[in-house]
């Protein structure tokens, strides 16, 4: 019940979901392990993309366009997030060089 036909061959939705899970996990590893703030932002983009793949896979499985519309909205939010995050980052780098996010601890009091 979870498969559908594309161009003569049968694809299974669970393959797409598994790919999305792998990509999301890779993004999580990046956010947790990497220390460069820029790379952390990049890994967040990777996670958002994996979620978009999940939305579109379910949209195709249920033959309901709402999932694609939600993916479109999430792309907009991701673009806004990237813009503001990078602006904050440029602002921080203007004051000093940060090569480890653990150095940015001024707000911890």
């Amino acid at each position, binding site marked *: *019940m979870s498969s559908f036909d594309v161009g003569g061959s049968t694809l299974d939705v669970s393959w797409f979901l598994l790919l999305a899970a792998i990509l999301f996990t890779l993004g999580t590893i990046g956010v947790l392990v990497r220390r460069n703030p820029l790379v952390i932002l990049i890994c967040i983009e990777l996670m958002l993309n994996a979620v978009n793949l999940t939305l579109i896979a379910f949209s195709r499985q249920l033959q309901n366009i709402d999932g694609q519309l939600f993916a479109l909205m999430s792309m907009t939010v*991701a673009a806004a997030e990237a813009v503001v995050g990078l*602006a904050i980052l440029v602002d921080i780098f203007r004051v000093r060089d940060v090569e480890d996010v653990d150095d940015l601890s001024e707000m911890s009091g």
Partner: protein
Amino acid sequence: MAAVIFFVAAALAVIGGIGVIISRQPIRSVLSLVVVMIALSVEFLLLSAQFIFVVQIIVYAGAVMVLFLFVIALLGPARELGRGRLRFQSWLSLLFVAVFFGLIYAMFQGITYRQPDKADLSVFGTVQSIAVGLFTNYLYPFELTSILLLVAAIGAVYLSRRDLR
């Protein structure tokens, strides 16, 4: 044929994702992410999401990634040198992420799909069908995203002012 395309694109996406997290230089992470985005756009095409496919390439692989490249060009190549102060956390986080992946995987195994809506698949995911959804059922969220983008643009301009302090 479609299955072959799926697996090639999936392999590219996973390789790109690994490249994102193991590259020492941020610019290589960004270029790996472009590979992931383009591979994912192929997957979107397999899921008959033509419009999202185009948007993915233009907005994500085009605009957002170029933004990242500009910022890297502006800040210079900040490499990750040496070891972090919280080295043990890396290994701990890998353990947690493995458990996390197991949870997601177990969750996907338990999915029961409801009956599909029997949409007309010949127009599914085209610009027209997206627009009909966007301008009827989801007009209010669609207008709200314009406010969101405006706020983000104003915030970015404000944050990058020179005479802030």
